[in-house]
Structures are given as structure tokens and as C-alpha cells.
């Protein structure tokens, strides 16, 4: 048992060294360790696991994802897949509203790689300035602040959580006027 765990750890290190990181700097290393621990001890899995985003780019998916695991019946997977494809599979469209604008827009979050990308696109689309995000102050000082509604129905400031987490939990965006957003920036 000891040796197996040891080999797991050393694989861990190798993966870390070569792995592309998509998260914001300062992402919790424990979370990353968890994802690389998914290396199986069985002989089926022989190629390295990758983070969510890289999954699709890997050549034969067969070895990384094991047949019949997790044990969910295909009927159920297919039913839910249909709904998912409206969100994850082929683009992840969310509505974007801006205070004062006459109508809403829709953007595909999958198209962007990072917050920087997204904010640039939003600024272009709505012809506004959003400014720079800081953890302490949010977007204080700018004309507008981007906010989003998450899966639980709460309105959050864009930028607090790692990009991946944001993409999967964002249901819609709202670009608030800076004056209204003041409260959000202060901790």
C-alpha cells in the first residue's frame, strides 16, 4: 500500500510540472492536488489526467474516462445530456444586461479564456469602461461593475472566484452602474 501511494505522489509532482493552469494566480493548491489524485491505480488508466478544460483536446478519450464510471445508467446520462448541451456542450450562452441599455445581449462564455478576455469583450460590446478588478476594492472607481447571477440565485461580483468556477456557475450577467456597485467593493 505504501509503495502505491508513493508512486501516486511522484506522479503528482510530474503532472504539476507540466500542467497548464487556467486558474487565477493564488488558486488553492489543495484543489489542484485533488484533481491530479484521480490517477487510477488500476491498469486501465494509462494516460495523464488533465483539468476540465483540456479534456476535449486529448486524443483518444477512452483511457482517461473509464467505461461505466461513475455508475449512472446511460438512459439518465442521455436525458440530462440533452439539457446540458444547451449550456455546456455547444456553447454556454448567458444573457447580459447593462443598466440603462434598451435591450439585452447574449454571449457565449466558452469563447473566453479568462476574465480579462471577457471584460474586454463586454467593454467593446457595450461601449463602456469597466476598469480594473482588485480583490479588496472590486471595481471601485470605474464607471461600471460587472456582476452575475449564480446557480443559487445570488448576485455576485465578477472576478472573485476562479475562472472555471465562474463559467460553470454563471447564469446571467448584469453590468451595474458604478454608483450602485459601490457597496460591493468594500469588504
Amino acid at each position, binding site marked *: 500500500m505504501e509503495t502505491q501511494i508513493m508512486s501516486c505522489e511522484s506522479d503528482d509532482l510530474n503532472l504539476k510540472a507540466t500542467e497548464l493552469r487556467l486558474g487565477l494566480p493564488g488558486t488553492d493548491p489543495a484543489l489542484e492536488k485533488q484533481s491530479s489524485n484521480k490517477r*487510477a491505480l488500476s491498469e486501465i488508466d494509462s494516460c495523464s489526467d488533465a483539468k*476540465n478544460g483540456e479534456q476535449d483536446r486529448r486524443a483518444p478519450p477512452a483511457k482517461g474516462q473509464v467505461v461505466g464510471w*461513475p*455508475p449512472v445508467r446511460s*438512459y439518465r446520462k442521455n*436525458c440530462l445530456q440533452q439539457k*446540458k448541451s444547451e449550456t455546456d456542450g455547444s456553447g454556454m450562452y448567458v444573457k447580459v444586461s447593462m443598466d440603462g441599455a434598451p435591450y439585452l445581449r447574449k454571449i457565449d462564455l466558452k469563447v473566453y479564456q479568462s476574465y480579462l478576455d471577457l471584460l474586454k469583450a463586454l467593454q467593446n460590446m457595450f461601449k463602456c469602461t469597466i476598469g480594473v478588478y482588485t480583490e479588496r476594492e472590486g471595481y471601485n472607481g470605474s464607471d461600471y461593475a460587472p456582476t452575475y447571477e449564480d*446557480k443559487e440565485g445570488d448576485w455576485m461580483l465578477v472576478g472573485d472566484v476562479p475562472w*472555471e468556477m465562474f463559467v460553470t456557475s454563471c447564469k446571467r450577467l448584469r453590468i451595474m452602474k458604478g454608483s450602485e456597485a459601490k457597496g460591493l467593493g468594500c469588504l
Partner: protein
Amino acid sequence: MREDRPPPTPSRGGAYSPPPPDQVLENVLEHVLQFLTFRRDRNAAALVCRSWHRAEALTRLELFIGNCYAVAPRRAMERFRRATAVTIKGKPRFADFNLMPPDWGANFTPWVTFMAQCYRALEKLCLKRMFVTDEDLELLASFPSFRELVLICCDGFGTSGLAVVASKCRKLRVLDLIEDEVTDDEIDWISCFPEGETCLESLIFDCVECPIYFEALERLVARSPSLKKLKLNRYVSIVQLYRLMIRAPQLTHLGTGSFSPSEIVAQGDQEPDYSSAFDACRSLVCLSGFREIVPDYLPAIYPVCANLTSLNFSYANISAEQLRSVIRYCHKLQIFWVLDTVCDAGLQAVAATCKDLRELRVFPIDAREDSEAPVSDVGLLAISEGCRKLQSILYFCQRMTNAAVIAMSENCPELVVFRLCIMGRHLPDHVTREPMDEGFGAIVKNCKKLTRLATSGLLTDRAFSYIGQYGKLVRTLSVAFAGDSDTGLKYVLEGCPRLQKLEIRDSPFGDSALRTGLHRYYNMRFLWMSSCRLTRRGCKEIAQQMPHLVVEMINGEEEEVKDDYVDTLYMYRSLDGPRADAPSFVTIL
């Protein structure tokens, strides 16, 4: 043991000769044994002596075949000549997860063929994981008293088979299709029910992925006054649901279909008052469906929440907040199935209200091992604290802790079924980084009524030592990607006297472990081991030592000759030797 005695001699000259005492006893026995319903009791009675065996066989009305290959149709039906209700189970459960090539077997045809001779009076049939053809259904439909058909996880038939059943079974009361794969033969089977009042009590077809002709369904429901259970497929829109509900306010079980409008509903469109339709269903206790739910319509179900004992949201992509708005009324809920989109917060809401909860299933919306599951140990802990009467749980997650599992073992002593699926393989406790041994150990130790256990996460042989030591009532055990060595499996085979069904995949157990179970296998329904460390020789040894065991080696699809290891071992006891219908990829040792 008594001999078969000749029939009593007829009286002569009008004098009455009372039947011999044996005959009296047997008549009495038959009358008394009629009242025995539990299988286990009947099996025990049949072992007393030959006359009890005979009497029991003649009075058994419900025949249960746990493994269709354990006994030949002829033998079963000749012993129990008067059975009118039959249940047959076919493929092992891991076949549901594509671990078995198609066309493996579990064919219903040999059974129905024999039934056509021996069981013409058949009334009820329940099949699980069997391969059923349209022709089989057609033959069934010809039985004059046939009235109840329940098919669970079956395949091989289509809507044309359903059409025949609908049109020819004049006494049909129950047609329940549950998680079957039904091919679309483009036949409007609903229209095939005969005109006039039907005796339908239950019509469940939510798994049938074919459009139906709604007007025919509406007319059918309107002329089925005894209909209590109706579960629609996703091709029924919410407007259509409304029309059905107002015709059937007597429903007790409802599957709502898509629960969304069929077209975009524009602002200002006149929509029916869905809430009033639900309000009219005063007897509704079981609600499911919501296959394509538009959450705006959820409030329509508020009127029935207080009476619900069973709620299935496992196809509904709803948030914690949306769930909260419903669950707060569901005080009587006993069975709850849900998607993990409700997050830990949603589960906390369930724990706060559903004090009577007996069964909980939390399914993943994204069933991939590296998905981000929004439920975790937090949700499990909340449930354990709020729902003390919990008996059965199935929980998919990515993050779990031993502490939460231990808490559940202590808070929920009534647990009979504990199935935890940590989707990432070999994941340890996400806080302590330890294996999940202690958690599962606590479950087997503290839950004294536990009969079914499914493990996951990083587990060492120690977990299995706990299972062997404490899992004295465990009948079904599912293991995947767990253990370190043969010792793990040995603990289980030596320690669990009630073990019936053991299914293992991708775990490092080999021939030596297999050998330690020799004393067990005749008392088990089956053993499944796939992608473990068994060799052909090891399996052959078992086959040679145990003549009444059928030892199947099933080869996976692609044949890269890996190593000596057997892909899949599936073995089970049988009274009638190896089956004759094994396909080429199955080798029976």
C-alpha cells in the same frame, strides 16, 4: 419421507369412506399454506418434508426467479404449477453501465414459450433486465387472464410490441414501463387500446422516447375511471398535462412529462391555471417527471406538496432556491430523488423540513469523474442531522469526508442501504487526505440493519476488514477501484455470512482471494468481478471444484491481448447446468 400415495378409493355401495388421514393433513396444509406470502417463509416450509414440499408447491401463487439462468423454465414451472404471478431477473446490475457486451443473454423467449403451455392462466409478470422481443409480448398478450405487465430496465422490444399488448390484453390493469429501452417503430400504440371503458389502474411510460398522439391519450385517460397511476413521457407538454389532470383528479401517482410548454409562450398568452389542476388532485401522493422543467412553473405543484410522500426531481435542473420554495411544504415526504444542481444548500433545506424521509437519492447532472459536483460532505451531514429515520441513501459527489460518513452512521441507525459514489476514482477524504476506510467502517459497525452497501473513494484493505467484521447482514456489496490486495476480498468472503450479490470492478483481487469463497458461492446469487486480477486458470479451478456453479468468462469488446487476466468473471449457481444460449464472447468454464 412419505411416498406418493394412491388417490383415495371410491366408496362402494353408497357407504362413505372418509379420506385417509394423510390426505386430510395435506388438504389442511394447503389451506394453511395459502396464507404464507413471504418467499423466505415458503422456502422454509418446503424443506420440512415431502408432503409439505408438495403442498407448498401447489399453493405458491407468486414465483420469483432471481436469476433467469439459475433454473430452467421447465423445472420451475413444473414444480409450481399454479403460480399466476411471475417475476424474473436477468442480467446482473453492472450491465446497466455498459460493462457487458450487448446480446449477452437473459432472453425471455424460452420462458414465455413454456408459459404458453404451462401458465395459460398467468395474470402478472414482472421482468427486470431481460431481453424481451415484440413476439414475446405478442405471445403474452394471448393469455386470457393476463392483466399486469411490469418491465424494468428491459430492452429488445418496441412500440409495436406495446401496440399488441394494448390491443389484445382485454383485462389489462397495469402497464408499467420503467427505465426500458423501447425502440420507436412509429406506431401509435396508445390508440391501440380498445374503445370503451378500460380497467387500467396504472400506465407508466415515462421512459418511452417516442412521441405519442395526444388526443388518443386524452381519450384513453377519460375512459379509464380506475386509473390511479399515470407517468407521462417528455413528449407531453405542460398544457397537455393540464388537460389530462382535469380528467383524472383521482390520480395518486403522477409523472408530469416535460413540465414545459411545447412552444415559446409569448407574454400575455392565456395559460391554464395549472395550480388549480394540482389542487383538484386530492389523492396525489407521488410526483415525478419534470423532464424538461421550466422552473417558472414550479409553484403549480404547491397545492399537493403537503400530501406528497414521494417526489422525484432527478431529471429537473433546479437550483437550491427553487427547491427550497417547494420542499418547505413537503412535511410528509418519505422518498426524495433529486439532482445535485440543488447543491448542499438545497439538501439543507430538505433536512430542515423532511423529518420523515426514508429514502434519498442525489444524482449528478454531470456524470463524469472529473466534473464539479456541487454537493459534498456538507449536504450529507445536514441530511444525517435532519432526517434521522433515513433507511436508504444513494449519493453522488466529488468531495466527501470520513467525518460526515461517520456522523451519518451515528445519526441514522435505521440505514438499510448505504450507497456512496465519490465520482473521482481513489479520492481520499478531502480534508484529512486519509482513505475513506473509517467512514465505511463506521457505517457497517453502527448501522446494524445494513443489508446493502456500495463503496467508493480511496479504500485500503482495512475498509474490507471492517466490512467482514461488522457487515453481518450485508446481502449486496458493490466495490469499485478499491482495496490493496487479495486480503481485502478474503475479509469479505470469510466475514459476511449473508452475502448474496457481490459485484466488484477494477480492484486488485486475484485467484487466491477467489478460492477463499468456495464455501460461499452456492449460497450466493452471483459474483461479478471485472478488470480484477483473476486468471483463467484460477477461474477454471473454481469451476472444477464446484459443479453446480456456472462460471462465465466474458471478454470485453476490443481484443488487445493484454495480460493473462480475465476481463469479466460472472458466476452463479444453477440447477440446470450451463446455459445453451451463450454468445461467442462468453466462455463457460
